[in-house]
């Protein structure tokens, strides 16, 4: 399998803070790659840098072999990269349907058909289709955030901490949805919930202090108690 996404020695700063200090990772096609690490390790910053929200000061980001680190965020999204940010980033004053329509690159028959499929995949969204998104529960908001990324034909989906703050039963629903997603796109998942990450992940990277400090299969990390204790504190 070829690499869909490749980061090579990426450095990035937020204001005066040098957050990413040499992140390198490769994401295989059709696999779920999990980014793990403690709070402040640089996982979200890595996602934002891939999406072009932050411009790397050094290093390169390649998508399907093409350098994308100098492109603006909208151009990166149009290459077929979907992003579900931490905290969902839903538009609270818009309705559920409007949230889905904003996410469409163009309102074509194809994207409307995709929206119908998303509403079929998440029945709660269909039920609250004309409700303001701000009135949804945490789990429903997360479904909406994921649904928004699916109204376009994405080849790579970046999902940042989807289980954060959700009840266990909702997390189970989320895992089922992400498993279904695996069949449609390559997924990069940032997740603090190790149990969820281990059930979904094929490959994993562990980050610490803005660097990737471990890479391998998810199965080998699950089996390595010393590594888990050292970098993840579990």
């Amino acid at each position, binding site marked *: 399998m070829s690499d869909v996404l490749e980061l090579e020695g990426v450095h990035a700063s937020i204001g005066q803070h040098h957050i990413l200090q040499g992140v390198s990772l490769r994401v295989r096609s059709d696999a779920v790659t999990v980014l793990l690490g403690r709070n402040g390790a640089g996982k979200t910053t890595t996602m934002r840098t891939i999406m072009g929200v932050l411009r790397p000061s050094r290093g390169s980001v390649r998508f399907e072999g093409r350098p994308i680190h100098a492109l603006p965020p909208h151009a990166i999204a149009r290459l077929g990269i979907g992003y579900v940010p931490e905290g969902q980033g839903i538009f609270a004053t818009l309705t559920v349907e409007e949230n889905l*329509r904003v996410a469409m690159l163009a309102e074509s028959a194809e994207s409307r058909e995709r929206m119908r499929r998303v509403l079929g995949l998440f029945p709660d969204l269909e039920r609250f289709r004309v409700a303001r998104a701000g009135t949804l529960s945490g789990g429903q908001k997360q479904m909406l955030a994921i649904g928004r990324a699916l109204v376009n034909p994405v080849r790579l989906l970046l999902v940042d901490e989807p289980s954060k703050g959700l009840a266990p039963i909702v997390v189970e629903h989320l895992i089922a949805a992400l498993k279904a997603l695996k069949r449609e796109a390559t997924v990069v998942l940032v997740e603090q919930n190790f149990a969820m990450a281990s059930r979904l992940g094929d490959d994993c990277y562990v980050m610490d202090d803005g660097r990737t400090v471990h890479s391998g299969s998810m199965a080998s990390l699950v089996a390595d108690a010393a590594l888990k204790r050292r970098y993840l504190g579990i």
Partner: protein
Amino acid sequence: MTRGVPLAVGAVVLLLLPLAAIEPRAWLTLTVAGLAMGMLIFLVASGLTLIFGLMDVLNFAHGALFSWGAYAGFTVALLVDGRWGWAASPSLLANAGVFLLAIAAAVAVAFGLGVLVERVIVRPVYGQHLFQILITLGATIVLEELIRIAWGPNDQVMPVPFGFQGSWDVADVIVLRFPIIAIGLGVIVYAGMLWLLNRTRVGLIVRAGVENNEMVQVMGHDIHRYFTGVFAVGSGLAGVGGLMWGLFSQSIRPAMGGEQLIFAFVVVIIGGLGSVTGSLVGALLVGLSYNYVAFLVPKAAIGVTMGLMVLVLLVRPTGLFGVGK
């Protein structure tokens, strides 16, 4: 909907309250004047609220674009009137013609300048409020000086179309014509903006951008294109506002925009950043309260506008229709 009922009740109470102290015929005249003043402020504030709400840009050059709109409309009205006598003509059709041409000129010039100001002046300072204030104040000085160079520093008399002058006598109440036209135009602009924002895809993306412009970008929309568009439309509205204010006061001067900008900022704060309906409600509140109080206690007129803003900020810090960020 839930906010609509108390607001409607509040609006009716506000409208009727001055009747306790003002004789009904004077009250009706003041109400029409207040609504007209409110609509004129709304034209300026609606553009400002979108620029402020969507782009988080403190645009102090908005006032200068207001002045440019007034001068562009004035020049076209003068030319058309000088050549064909349309403003002085008793024909309403000719009056409407010169009025529409003046509006077209005001919109075109302010829209074009808006594109220029956004691309050259504002774009390098996104996210930096202090620089935005300084550079847009600088742009204001340059734009106002350009007006002085082109048209001179003195006040100019605005040619008001003949049919727009004078008044109607409705059951012994004097109703001035121009305020009614201003109210009508304000309603048309408000309806147009609501249609654009709520019924079109561009409007949907702009509304989403007001809430979270970074998210709109990562969804594949070039937010800078929308920024330029919103800035230009907002500037065009400022231009119309300038022309209408010139027709209302029958004169224009280079610094007229700066004088109105303070009202527009107050209205944006009262209505809530990014809300067009908030701007309309805020502008009408300011226009009506200013006129009632100016009639009862002239010296307190400006104070009531500021008092209104303080009151709203105390009760609802995000403004009447603001969502907060």
